[in-house]
């Protein structure tokens, strides 16, 4: 059951991609966020409430980098919200399945949101369910399904989780 060398290498690559994802969002470089996905990658946020009842409604759903770029445009240009930052934590990675090309994994995330006037809160906690495309050049998400444990969103959700 203890992982062999290949498992170790996979974990390392998955964790590296997870860390890049965190930095892109938390360092306010959201423009780079779509580039962490494959061209037709899928990004979706579905609450545990909907997910566990097989209800398809998502809070955000981006099919492909174009829709992700539009979320960036929304964030930068269109939508109105109070200035805020996220700080992510991640733990509990498990590789569920892997072949030469694709890794499937699950892990925990926690997002602390801080508003410009200083208020901090647990904004979201839950799991990432990922399909990762292995590519010697640069690993990418084929799919990242975010499943928040909470059914509630405080105020609004404008930055991807």
């Amino acid at each position, binding site marked *: 059951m203890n992982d062999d060398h290949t498992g170790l290498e996979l974990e390392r690559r998955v964790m590296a991609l997870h860390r890049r994802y965190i930095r892109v969002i938390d360092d306010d470089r959201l423009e780079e966020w779509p580039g962490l996905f494959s061209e037709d990658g899928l990004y979706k946020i579905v609450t545990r*409430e909907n997910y566990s009842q097989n209800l398809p409604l998502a809070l*955000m759903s981006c*099919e492909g980098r*174009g829709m992700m770029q539009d979320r960036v445009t929304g964030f930068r*240009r269109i939508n109105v*919200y109070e200035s805020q930052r996220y700080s992510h934590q991640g733990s509990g990675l498990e590789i569920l399945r892997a072949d030469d090309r694709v890794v499937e994994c699950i892990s925990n995330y926690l997002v602390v949101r801080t508003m410009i006037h200083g208020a901090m809160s647990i904004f979201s906690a839950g799991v990432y369910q990922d399909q990762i495309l292995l590519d010697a050049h640069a690993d990418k998400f084929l799919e990242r399904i975010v499943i928040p444990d909470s059914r*509630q969103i*405080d105020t609004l959700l*404008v930055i991807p989780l």
Partner: protein
Amino acid sequence: MTAEPVNVKWPEPRTTRVPLGLMSDPAIHALEQQKIFQGETWHYLCLEAEIPEPGVYKTTAIGATPIVVTRDEQGQIHALINRCKHKGALVCVEPCGKVKTLRCLYHGWSYDLSGKLRFVPFEKGVQNKGGMPETFDKSAHGLTALRTTCLHGVVFGTHSATVAELADYLGPAMLAHFKRIFHKPVEILGYYHQVMHNNWKLYMENARDSYHATILHAFYATFKLNRLTMGGGLTVDHEGWNTMNYSIGASLADGEYEGSGLRSVMADVGLADASLLHNRQEFADGITVAIQSIFPGCVNQQIYNTLALRQAVPLDVDRTELHWTFFGYRDDDAELRQMRLKQANLIGPAGYVSMEDGVIGEYVQRGIAGEGQSANAMLEMGGSDIASVTDSRANETTVRGFWQAYRSLMGL
């Protein structure tokens, strides 16, 4: 239960002014439970589709009062106050579930699905010692049942024995639109729950407010999804209690927006993937956006192919939870279903055209902090009437209607 004195004075008989103190006064907030939520009003509770078979229940709230909606063995729907008659505990704790009997966890008092008390543990004592008195009559201690009605598959309830039937409460125009949406069986697609840091009335005002839609929500105007220059109108029914804002179809480039200097019109912003805006004309009347508000706390929404019921539940004087139930029709083809789900990016807490409503009420709540009894909102757009308008939505008549209903119930 302490009756604090209420000191709000409305500055005029009309509703072109609204005292801002109504949004932050705890005494007003307490009084609203009685006068608004337990008063002469109807409240959206759930969709029949959510309790499709006997024993399935759903919990919700009318104001602060916990409610459970059940379907009994005969298929009959009941809305019950979710408060045990023994000592007041919640009988159903989870958001939804399926049961044979409504059993209170505390001492096991069990009610049937219509709320009748059926079983009291140790009612006759243990070995005939103790137990309830001879005079105890279970039939007198059922869960309090609300007056309930199902309108085209949507369940409403009221504490009131005297308020008019729901169809009359809505008024003919509102009833017609309600039927337009709920004309065939629906399928639940999912839920959103959004906590807003503002008084519930600020949200309900907002939902009726055609003035802000194309200014605050830049997505609407920029992508020409909704502009006041499009066809559309404001419908007022039941003296303003219930209202609708709607707009009709194809938008055009038009001078009143393009040259306006409005922040919300961004000529240089485009979508990388415009498939988000692909939509299908579902209704013969050509209405593409229709926001119907039913006093006090219900919104019935069509934004292109997104259909949702929204329910605003006050959590505190300055905090409100908005529950969104997103649905389609049972006979939707796969493409239409996908369209609805993709367009869901427009609505809810993360919606391109609705996320701002999650914070704008908070901006008002914070803006009026420190205010005593002097400041008022000013609602003069379109004059002072409360009446339907078909030629312009630059009009706050629907918002004035909300306050007219509110005043008359609150006795202010």
